[in-house]
């Protein structure tokens, strides 16, 4: 570790020495992301704002504009407005890949550096840099954990998010994770990544099925509603709930050894910050960044939970 730090310090010194003028280079990066419509996107907005502050402090010539949009159509408009201001790079988390591929292509045609986060475009040649979590892996890791913990046999209920590609990929990954076992998926319903809807769906599952061994709800926000419904019904047959994303409350439960939330699967909203860092690096540090940067769907357990706990984050 020390060696790495020393190396970094040397690198930093070197870059300060050789590129003192480069730090003042004027660069305008636009960040276009969905509005905070649920916990995870809330985390994205928080980390985008935080990264804006740190990056602007590090590179005095850098200007970052963060713009949130409530839906795909208004995001397309926002992209036009941002381009009109004259931007050097665009970091975007598109609402919907299909819908926004063409608007982003138009930005690209003006010679802008394009970084796409989380949701890949239909035409991948547009994006210079792609930063994302691993959706199929998030499902697979959860599925394998459930398979292992239940000893390859049991009844599981699934709560899905919204009917979009991400959710579809997670479901496929999950099915792959439990393949070859006698795990039976009793039901799959949409909970819209909302605590309230997940609470309702879970109440209905509990009324419908007399025995449930585990719940996979792929999202920590929904896990909150699920736990509340189980507690209300005073059911003891459910052994545990597996969420996902890495919300601080759930990470804390994992760290505290809560038996209902033994693990969490990482899909961090802070990936927007990773994307912004790399994009800024492209302009100021002359480091090659083009390509795909896929974050792991790490299984958070009691042992490593501390690494992923951010008490100050809103998510």
């Amino acid at each position: 570790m020390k060696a790495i730090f020393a190396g970094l310090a040397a690198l930093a010194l070197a870059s300060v020495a050789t590129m003192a003028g480069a730090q003042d280079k004027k660069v305008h990066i636009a960040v276009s992301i969905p509005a905070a419509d649920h916990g995870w996107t809330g985390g994205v907005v928080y980390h985008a704002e935080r990264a804006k502050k740190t990056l602007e402090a590090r590179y005095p010539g850098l200007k970052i504009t963060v713009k949130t949009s409530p839906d795909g159509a208004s995001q397309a408009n926002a992209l036009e407005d941002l381009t009109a201001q004259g931007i050097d790079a665009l970091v975007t988390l598109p609402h919907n890949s299909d819908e926004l591929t063409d608007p982003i292509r138009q930005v690209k045609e003006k010679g802008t550096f394009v970084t796409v986060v989380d949701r890949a475009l239909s035409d991948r040649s547009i994006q210079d840099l792609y930063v994302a979590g691993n959706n199929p892996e998030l499902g697979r890791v959860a599925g394998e954990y459930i398979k292992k913990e239940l000893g390859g046999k049991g009844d599981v209920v699934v709560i899905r998010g919204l009917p979009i590609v991400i959710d579809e990929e997670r479901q496929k990954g999950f099915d792959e994770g439990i393949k070859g076992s006698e795990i039976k998926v009793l039901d799959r319903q949409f909970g819209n990544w909302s605590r309230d809807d997940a609470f309702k769906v879970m109440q209905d599952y509990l009324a419908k099925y007399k025995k449930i061994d585990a719940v996979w709800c792929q999202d920590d926000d929904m896990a909150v509603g699920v736990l509340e419904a189980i507690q209300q019904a005073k059911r003891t047959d459910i052994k545990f709930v597996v969420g996902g994303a890495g919300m601080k409350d759930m990470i804390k439960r994992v760290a505290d050894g809560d038996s209902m939330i033994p693990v969490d699967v990482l899909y961090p909203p802070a990936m927007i910050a990773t994307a912004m860092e790399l994009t800024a690096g492209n302009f100021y540090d002359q480091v090659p960044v083009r390509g795909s940067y896929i974050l792991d769907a790490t299984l958070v357990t009691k042992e490593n939970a501390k690494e992923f706990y951010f008490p100050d984050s809103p998510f």
Partner: protein
Amino acid sequence: MNNITATQTARRPLSDIDLRAVAPFVALAALLVFGALINPNFLGLDNLTNVATRSAFIAIIAVGATFVISAGGLDLSVGSMAAFVAGTMILFLNSGAVSGDTGMIAAAMLMALATGALCGLANGLITTLGRIEPFIVTLGTMGIFRALTIYLAEGGSIAIKSQELRAAYRPIYFGDVLGVPIPVIVILAVGIIGAFIFYRTRFGRHVTAVGSNEDVARYSGISVNRVRTLTYVIQGLCVAIAVLVYVPRLGAATPTTGLLWELQAITAVVIGGTALRGGVGRIWGTICGALILEVVGNIMVLSDLVSEYLIGAVQGAIIIIAMLIQRSLGRR
């Protein structure tokens, strides 16, 4: 409208009963039978109390909406307002301004009611004094309340911090009196008070008068603006009461709190037999409408008939069919 109608409506002979007023209850009964046929667990006591309890938020808000809509207005901001009131209430609970859990919760409840009433007053005054269409005003405040909530939450969620406080408040949603869940009692109380104001007071008659014909109401000496504004204040109070029941459930306000509640509330009001153009209001029909919405959703999850992708379509169809049944009963 003269003063004998008030006392006479309650004691009409059976043959005089307005079938349109009964229709929502018939539709609900039909749905209950349908649900029982689909899954025997549906009629389980646990499931039915769950559904009735869950319908509390929309039912209570929709009672307020019945006043607004009967007076010829519309409030699209109720969902966002619920999130805003819930957010500020929880922030107040977290501030620890009052010592003692019970005192703290009581103070927070009063604060929430005041916030709700003020939000409603703002809607009412902008609509009446500003002479702007309520659709536009409340569309604007819908955005404002939602954004303020997200701002207060810094994009995340606002949760009750103290576990003791959360435990002390929890029974308001999960508790019961003689087996009847507290939220259901709250629905009944709001229904009784709402029905009393609507059917038995001068203000209630003014509401329908304003809704059926504004000019005639004005010439009859009714202060149209005052009546309209008051309906929005009642709506705000109802939103706050719904929040009092909502907060103890999950102990948090999130960006998805109250999402699309305005549409559900308006749907409940219309299913219940209130005219969207104003002039006719049915408080108990509205509550029945809210129950219907929740029962439909419940049946969808309990049945294995429909793919999870098609649930929305079936829900929509059931609501339209319920309205058609109601219409055909009304014509007879």
